[in-house]
C-alpha cells in the first residue's frame, strides 16, 4: 500500500508541482497516472522512489513513513521499487545481460544468484536470445524491455514507469504495456505515468488524472481524453 497524505511539492516559489495530493494505492494495483506535460506525474513517481522529498504532507509505503527518509536508508527503499524511464538509462558498454547483472551486483547479490536469475528475467521479458547484445544493437522496444528486466532484478514490490513508451512507436508501446500487465499479474504494484490516451483507454485499469499538480479525477476503470 502506497499512501499519499496531503502531499505538496514546491520546486520554486512561483508554482507548485504537486498541490495537496491524497491517494491510496493498494498492493497489487495497476494505476495509470495521466495528465498533460508538466502536470506533476514525474514528480509523483520521484516522491515514491525518494528522488525528491515532499514539501508538505506524508508518504507511507507498506507502513514505512518515507517522508523524512534518511539518506542511508534510501538504498533499502530503492531495492523495493523498480524504476523505468522514457530514455531507458542502459549502460552502453554493457550487454543486455550485463546491464541486468550490474544492478544485481551493486545490490550485493552473490555471483551465483546473479547467474541464475538474469536468464530468468530475460525470459520473462522475452529477450533470452538477445542476452549478449549491446544497447546499440537493440530496438527501442527491446531496450525498454531490458530496462524493465533490470528494474525487476530485485523482485521489487512496486514498479514505477515514467513514460516508458514515450520514445516508442505504437506497436512497441503496446508490447511494453503487455509486459507491465504481465508483471502486475505476478503480484507487483505497477504505477504507469503516461500521456498516451490510447494505451490508457485500452488498459481499463485505475486512472488518476493530474492537472496543474492536483488530482482532478480518480476512476476505477478510467479513460483519458487529451
Amino acid at each position, binding site marked *: 500500500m502506497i499512501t499519499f497524505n496531503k502531499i505538496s511539492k514546491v520546486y520554486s516559489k512561483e508554482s507548485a508541482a504537486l498541490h495537496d495530493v491524497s491517494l491510496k494505492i493498494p498492493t497489487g494495483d495497476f494505476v495509470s497516472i495521466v495528465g498533460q506535460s508538466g502536470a506533476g506525474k514525474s514528480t509523483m513517481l520521484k516522491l515514491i522512489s525518494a528522488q525528491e522529498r515532499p514539501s508538505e504532507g506524508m508518504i507511507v509505503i507498506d507502513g514505512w513513513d518515507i517522508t523524512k527518509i534518511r539518506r542511508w536508508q534510501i538504498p*533499502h527503499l530503492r*531495492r523495493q521499487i523498480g524504476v523505468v524511464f522514457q530514455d531507458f538509462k542502459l*549502460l552502453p558498454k554493457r550487454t543486455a545481460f550485463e546491464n541486468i547483472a550490474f544492478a544485481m551486483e551493486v545490490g550485493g547479490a552473490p555471483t551465483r544468484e546473479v547467474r541464475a536469475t538474469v536468464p530468468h528475467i530475460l525470459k520473462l521479458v522475452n529477450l533470452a536470445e538477445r542476452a549478449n547484445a549491446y544497447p546499440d544493437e537493440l530496438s527501442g522496444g527491446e531496450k525498454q524491455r531490458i530496462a524493465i528486466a533490470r528494474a525487476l532484478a530485485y523482485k521489487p514490490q512496486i514498479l514505477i514507469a515514467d513514460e516508458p513508451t514515450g520514445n516508442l512507436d505504437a506497436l512497441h508501446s503496446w508490447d511494453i504495456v503487455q509486459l507491465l500487465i504481465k508483471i502486475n499479474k505476478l503480484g507487483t504494484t505497477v504505477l504507469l505515468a503516461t500521456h498516451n490516451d490510447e494505451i490508457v483507454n485500452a488498459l481499463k485499469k485505475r486512472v488518476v488524472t493530474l492537472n496543474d499538480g492536483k488530482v482532478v479525477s480518480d476512476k476505477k476503470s478510467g479513460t483519458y481524453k487529451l
Partner: protein
Amino acid sequence: MIGVSFFRILRAAGNNFLRNVWLSIATTVIMTITLLIVMFLFFANVFGLEVINNIQQKIDLSATFMTEASEEQMSKVVRNMEQRPDVRAVQFVSSDEALKIFRERNIDKPYIEESLAELGKNPLPASMFIVATAPEYYEDIARYLGDDQFGEVIEEVSYEDSRDMIQRLISIISTIKNAGFIITIVFAGLVILIMFNTVRLAIYSFREEIDIMHLVGASRWFIRGPFVIESMLVAILSVIITTGIIYPLLNGIAPELQRYFLEGYAQQEGFNIYAYAVQEWPTVLGLQLAVALGLAIISSLIAIQRYLNS
C-alpha cells in the same frame, strides 16, 4: 555477501585506476615524491640526533698529571673531582695503564716498541678523564682544574669545546626540518589537488554507472567505495615504490655517512642508518602508510563529497 561486495568494489577500483591510467600514474609519482621527502626528513632527523649524541659523548675533559706527582696527591684530586655535583664520572689512568693501552694500540708498529726500549722508561704521564653531567659544565670544571691549587699536581688540562659545533648541528637540523616541513606541506597539497582531480575524473567517467547505481539502490559504500579504494591503491603503490627506493639507497650510503660523520666518535659498534631502518621497519612503513593513506582518504572523500552527492 560482504566478501563478494568487497571483491567487486576492489575490481571497480582497479577499473577506475586503469580508465585514467596516466592521471593515476601522475598521482602515484607525486605521492611517491612526497613520501620520499617525508622519509628524508625522518632519517635526517634520526641521523642528526645520532651525530649530536656521538659528539656529546665524545666531549671529555682530561687532565695529565705531573710526573712528579705522588699517588696520594693524584687520588686526592680524583676524589675531589668525584665529589663535584657537576661531574658524573672520573676515570683515572695510571702511567702504567697508559703505557699498556698505548702498546696495545700500536701493536702493529714495531718501531714504537723499539723507541720505547731505547727510552728506557715510561714516557706516558698518568691522567684522568672527566665526564660532566651536562655539556655546559665542562668550562667550569676545566677552569677549576687549571687553578693554582692544583699547580703542583696537574700538568695540563685539555678539553675540546664542541658546544659550538653541536649548536651548529642542531640549527642545521632544525633548518632542514623547517624547510622540509614546508616542502612536505606543499607536496601534500599537490597530492591532494591531483588526487582530488583524479577522483573527480573517475566520478565523471562513471557518471552513468553511478546514476544507475543510485536508482537500483546500491549502498552508499558500494558507490563510494571504489573511488576511496582507488586512492588507497595509489597510496599503497606509492609506499611500495618509496620503500623500494629508500632501502637500497640507505644501504648504499650508510657506510659513507658513517665514515664521514661518525668516524672516530663511535666507541663500539658504529651507528648504521640502514641497520636502523631495517630494525625500525614498522615505524618506517607505518609513517609512510599513515601519510599516504591519510592524503588519499582526505582527497577522495572531499571529491566524493563534492561530486557524488546528487
